[in-house]
């Protein structure tokens, strides 16, 4: 049973306000991140940039060391304090993200939510789900306790958890892995963010659960009008669920294209190699799997 995913093409405006829809939600240019090491500064990201519009979904694809997580965390404001960040601009809904001061305890950027790879480490282990959801819902506006609780239950139902009373009273360690993942999504979206950064949300999941999670994320963010920046190493996932894909390698952007056209029109040999190397049901029948050797002579080990 396959489901086709609706994609927002560049020309449709999702909301009524023309001016608002024209202004990008996220505008980054010339982002460079270096870390001081004993051998001199190490460049993790070199001249990264993107423009993300309302309701749009963009994926950043890369392998380890590509700089995709650093770029994402720089936007979120969660880089380690020793990181040196320079950029031409980094603007989120009119707010200059570069003006944020680095600190061990970063401040939140209102309207920006993040989802991480593992729910077990992301959910606060000592508080109940209800109290964590309540804390998020209360920041969306003046709601009393009863309304907040109803809204929390509503969000649980939206992510597919129907035993809302039990889940609200439970603590993260009392839930199964799959339920924790859904709670994490509910927590990220209950604040009704304008931008969702998803850092490898499906990497720990198998194929069926991955698709379920992405379908859920896509339907909920479309309902809210939230833009999504998806960071992943799974190039096929990115192709299926996003509008544009950016490919990074060793800190640099090597390719950027409309997602559904990536397979046909990939220009950079690294992208072509990545696409060819993904294990599929077809490659399973070969005697030898394709490797990067055909595409790039020097692949960092």
């Amino acid at each position, binding site marked *: 049973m396959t489901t086709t995913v609706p994609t927002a093409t560049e020309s449709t405006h999702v909301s009524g306000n023309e001016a608002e829809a024209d202004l990008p939600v996220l505008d980054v240019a010339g982002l460079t991140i270096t870390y001081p090491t004993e051998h001199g500064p190490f460049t993790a990201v070199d001249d990264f940039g993107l423009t993300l519009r309302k309701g749009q979904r963009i994926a950043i694809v890369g392998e380890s060391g590509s700089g995709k997580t650093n770029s994402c965390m720089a936007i979120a404001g969660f880089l380690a304090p020793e990181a040196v960040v320079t950029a031409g601009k980094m603007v989120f809904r009119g707010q200059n993200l570069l003006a944020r001061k680095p600190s061990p305890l970063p401040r939140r950027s209102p309207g920006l939510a993040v989802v991480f790879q593992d729910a077990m480490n992301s959910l606060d282990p000592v508080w109940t789900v209800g109290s964590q959801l309540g804390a998020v819902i209360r920041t969306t506006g003046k709601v009393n306790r009863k309304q907040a609780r109803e809204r929390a239950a509503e969000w649980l139902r939206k992510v597919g958890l129907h035993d809302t009373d039990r889940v609200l009273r439970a603590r993260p360690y009392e839930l199964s892995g799959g339920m924790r993942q859904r709670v994490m999504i509910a927590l990220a979206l209950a604040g009704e963010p304008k931008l969702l950064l998803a850092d490898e949300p499906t990497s720990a999941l198998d194929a069926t659960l991955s698709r379920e999670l992405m379908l859920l994320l896509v339907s909920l963010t479309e309902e809210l009008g939230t833009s999504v920046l998806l960071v992943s190493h799974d190039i096929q*996932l990115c192709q299926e669920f996003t509008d544009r894909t950016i490919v990074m390698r060793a800190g640099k952007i090597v390719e950027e294209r409309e997602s559904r056209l990536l397979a046909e029109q990939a220009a950079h040999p690294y992208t072509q190699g990545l696409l060819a190397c993904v294990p*599929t*049901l077809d490659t399973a029948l070969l005697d030898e799997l394709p490797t*990067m050797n055909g595409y790039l002579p020097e692949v960092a080990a």
Partner: protein
Amino acid sequence: MSGAASVQFTEVVRTFRGKNGAEHAAVDGVSLLVDETVRMGIVGESGSGKSTVVRMMVGLDLPTRGSVEYNGRPTSAMLPNELRAFRAAVQLVAQDTSSSFDPRRTLRDAVRRPAQKLLGMSREEADSEVDTALRDLGLEPRLANRKPHQVSGGQRQRFAIARALVVRPKVLVCDEAVSALDVSVQGSVLNLLKRHCAERGAGLVFVSHGLPATAFIADRLVVMYQGKVVEEGSVEQVMYAPRHAYTRRLVDAYRTTSRIGASA
């Protein structure tokens, strides 16, 4: 090289006591045979019991009911010298590499020691085996002088594979052994594993939640779901004519994506 090595599971059940005292069967009645001629892939989601099966297969755990026998001897009743022979013959590459290396020793030391201890190789012999394995896996020799926490997760995983290969096992068991590797490196490592087992006449048990990689490296597929084996057969049969509903769901999830993937 010669000599049989077979691990036989007979109606194996492994239960754990849950928090409310209820018993939960992680593995519920599994029978299978693994020897040096086998190239078996075990797929299933997390919680399907495949990791528990792996632990019992290499003697790290014992069944609650049923028996796990190595060359006819139950693993629960083995003497120390039998255990040594068992461990040398059946090697495991585990999923969690951060805890499977001694943090105080260099990686070269870690990869070399099992060969010295289990096969009685001299340090020089072991070193040359180590160098061959590292080369095959695409690891620079100087990385081996580092400690486990000083290399990336993907590199560490390849060192774990090297450690198992150097011992020349009769059966190599891989539990999510390539999951931490980048896609660009996975292909060459999977090719290497397949070639190594074919050339040395070693058996291979590849356990993963990723169906395509497992289907590539194996001849036969075993599908596990909630502690039971729900499907078993040749790779072609399981992929193209799955019988169980879970298998069909699993194959379908990849069928969508394989349409989008580029064909060579």
